[in-house]
C-alpha cells in the first residue's frame, strides 16, 4: 500500500488545482511509530505532506461532519461505508465530496505490537508481508497478517463502496470470514458470567470518551452522558455509570457501525470496545440482513418500519 502515495498526491493536487475541492482530508506522517495524524491540505503545493501506509486506522469520515466546503477525502473500505452513512444521515452532501478511494489490505494494530514488545518501540518498517519492529536494542519480526487490527482481519469490505477516484486496482475481498466467533462465545455465557465479562472488559475505562469522539457515528450536539438537564448518567467512576455509557453508545450505533475499528484503536487503555458494537452488528445482519453503509438508497433498519419485522412487538 506504500505505492499508493504517489497516486494519492497526484489526485489531491489535481482536484485542488482544478478547484473541484477547497480542502483535501488525509493523513500526514506522525511523530511516533505506528500513528499518523489526520490533516487537511488547502494548497496544491502542500500535497507532498499526504502519506498513506498501514498506520492510517482512524476513520476520516469523522472529520466531515457538517462541514460546508467542497472536500476531497481519502477513504478506505470502512471510511467509504461511513461516508454513505453520513450522507444518508444528512451530515454531509454527496455533491460536496470527491472521494479518493483506497483499496485497503488492513491496518496495523499498534496496541497488539506494543503489548508484545518489551522495550520502547523506535521504528516500525513494512517489508513485504512482514513487519520489522526495533527499539531498545532489540528487533522483532511479525507476519503482517498476525498484527493487523482485529476488525481488519475479519473485514469483508476492503474496497471502497463509493468513490470518485480509485488510487489502485481493487484488492481481493476476503471470503469465508468468521466474523462473529467471539460474539457467539459471549452469547453462550450465563447471565452471571456475562456480567463478570463486561465488568472486566470495562474495568480500566477512564471516561475520556476517545472511543465516542473518534467515532463518525457519534455526532450528537450533546451526548446523553454529557447532558445535565436532565442528567441521565452519573459522571463519576461508578462502574454502573461507565457500563451505561458503553452499552448505550453501542445501541446508538446499531445498524450504523461499519466496524472500522477506530474506537478500539483510539482507546488509551486498550479496551476492546468493539465487542459491544459487533454484537449489534451481528443482530442487524441476522435479523434484518443488513450491513451498514453499502447503499445510499436504504435507511438503517432502526430508522425504518417494516411490516415483516421479525419481532412481534413491531408487527
Amino acid at each position, binding site marked *: 500500500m506504500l505505492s499508493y502515495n504517489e497516486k494519492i498526491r497526484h489526485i489531491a493536487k489535481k482536484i485542488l488545482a482544478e478547484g473541484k475541492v477547497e480542502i483535501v482530508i488525509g493523513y500526514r506522517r506522525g511523530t511516533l511509530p505506528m500513528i499518523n495524524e489526520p490533516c487537511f491540505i488547502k494548497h496544491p503545493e502542500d500535497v507532498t505532506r499526504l502519506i498513506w501506509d498501514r498506520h492510517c486506522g482512524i476513520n476520516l469520515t469523522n472529520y466531515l461532519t457538517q462541514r460546508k466546503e467542497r472536500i476531497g477525502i481519502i477513504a478506505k473500505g470502512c471510511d467509504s461505508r461511513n461516508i454513505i452513512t453520513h450522507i444518508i444521515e444528512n451530515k454531509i452532501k454527496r455533491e460536496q465530496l470527491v472521494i479518493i478511494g483506497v483499496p485497503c489490505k488492513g491496518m496495523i494494530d499498534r496496541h497488539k505490537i506494543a503489548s508484545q514488545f518489551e522495550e520502547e518501540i523506535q521504528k516500525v518498517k513494512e517489508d513485504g508481508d512482514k513487519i520489522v519492529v526495533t527499539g531498545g536494542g532489540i528487533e522483532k519480526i511479525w507476519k503482517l497478517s498476525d498484527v493487523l487490527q482485529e476488525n481488519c482481519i475479519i473485514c469483508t469490505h476492503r474496497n471502497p463502496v463509493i468513490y470518485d477516484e480509485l488510487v489502485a486496482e481493487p484488492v481481493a475481498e476476503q471470503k469465508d470470514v468468521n466474523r462473529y466467533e467471539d460474539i457467539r462465545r459471549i452469547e453462550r455465557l450465563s447471565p452471571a458470567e456475562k456480567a463478570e465479562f463486561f465488568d472486566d472488559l470495562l474495568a480500566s475505562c477512564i471516561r*475520556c470518551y476517545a472511543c465516542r469522539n473518534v467515532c463518525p457515528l457519534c455526532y450528537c450536539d450533546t451526548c446523553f452522558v454529557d447532558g445535565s438537564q436532565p442528567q441521565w448518567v452519573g459522571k463519576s467512576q461508578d462502574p454502573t455509570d461507565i457500563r451505561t455509557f458503553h452499552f448505550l453508545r453501542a445501541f446508538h450505533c446499531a445498524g450504523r457501525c461499519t466496524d472500522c475499528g477506530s474506537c478500539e484503536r483510539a482507546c488509551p487503555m486498550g479496551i476492546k470496545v468493539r465487542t459491544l458494537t459487533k454484537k449489534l452488528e451481528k443482530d442487524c445482519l441476522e435479523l434484518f440482513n443488513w450491513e451498514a453503509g453499502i447503499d445510499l438508497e436504504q435507511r438503517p433498519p432502526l430508522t425504518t418500519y417494516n411490516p415483516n419485522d421479525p419481532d412481534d412487538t413491531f408487527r
Partner: protein
Amino acid sequence: MNVIKIDKKTWTEGIGRLQGFYRLIGPVKDGDFYQFKALEKGESPDFSMLNTRLSPKSIIYPQSEVMFEYSLDETRDDCHVIKEIQVEYSPQVVFGIRPCDAKAFLLVQRNFETPEYKDPYWIRLYETTALIGLACNTPCSTCFCVDAGSGPFNDAGLDILLIDAGEYYYARVNTAKGEKILKDSGWSEETETKDAELAIENLKQAAENRITARISTDRLKEKGVPDLFNAPFWEDVAFACINCGTCTYVCPTCWCFDIQDEVRGTDGVRMRNWDSCMYPLFTLHGSGHNPRDAKTKRLRQRFMHKLKYYVDKYNDGIQCVGCGRCINLCPVNIDIRKICEAMNGFEPEQKSI
C-alpha cells in the same frame, strides 16, 4: 541529604516490614501496561516499567472523590445539612514515582494549596503520603523532562529517590518523612560516602545523554498573549483533535474538576470528578453561551494554559513535566512538542507554520 545503599537481597524483606506501618502503593503490571496499585501482602513494586500508563496524580487526587454527604429525608433533624465526609487518612507510601511525575505533584500543589485557598482533600492525602521515586536510567524517546525543568534523576517533590545501580539501590533521602521510612524498613542506616555521589552522577549523566526529545520554552514569556491567541497555526494543529479527554486525564499536571451531586433515594453526596478543557461542557455557561464553542478554541486553551498563562502567572517554567504520556496516548498524534515549538517560535507577522 544522605545517601543510603540498599542491597537488593534485603529489598523484599524491607518492603514486608514497611507493610506493617504503612499502606504501600506501587507500579504493578496490569494486563498490557503498568498501573499504580495498592500492594498486597508479600507483593513488591514492579520496577521493570518504563513508566505507568496513567500518572500517579490520582493517588492524591482521585478521579472521583466524595466531599460531602447529606440527607433529603425530612423526618431527620439533619435533613438538607451538608456534612463533610469522614475519611480515615492512614499513612501511605508510594514506590516507583518517576522524577517527572514527582515534580508534577509540586505543580498541582500550586492549585490546591495557595495562600488564599487550601483544598483539604488534596492536602490531607498529600500530607499523609510519602513519595519514593525511581530515577530513570533509560528515558524514552518522548521524554523531554530536562527541557521541562525536571530530569531523569531530579528529586524535587520526593521524600526518597531510589537509583537502580544493578545489585543495589542508592537511596537519596530528602525529608524527615523519608528518613523515618528508611528507619522503619530496616534496610540500612549507613550513610554512603562521596563515591556514591560520584556513581550516581555518572548514571545521571548517562541517562541525560539518552534524552533526545527537546522543546524550546525560552521565548514563551516574551510572546504577547493576544498574538499567540490569534496565531494562525491553531486551525492546523487542532484539525485532527477529537476533543477526547485522554491528554488531560493521563497528564500528571492537569488539575481541573467538576462538582456533581448524586442522590440515591434520600441519601445524597457531593463529589468532584476530573474534568477536561477538551469537553464542550467545560465552559458552557448557565445562559447557554459557550465561550469555547469550537474544538480549536478548546485545544488552544489547553496549550495556552500550559505553555503561556501558567508561564506568565507563576514565572517558574511551563505547566508540563515532559513525561510524554499525552504524546504516546493521543489517538490522533497531537504532539505537545510540536505545538510548543510553534508557540515559542511564533512571530506575529507570520502567516502559517
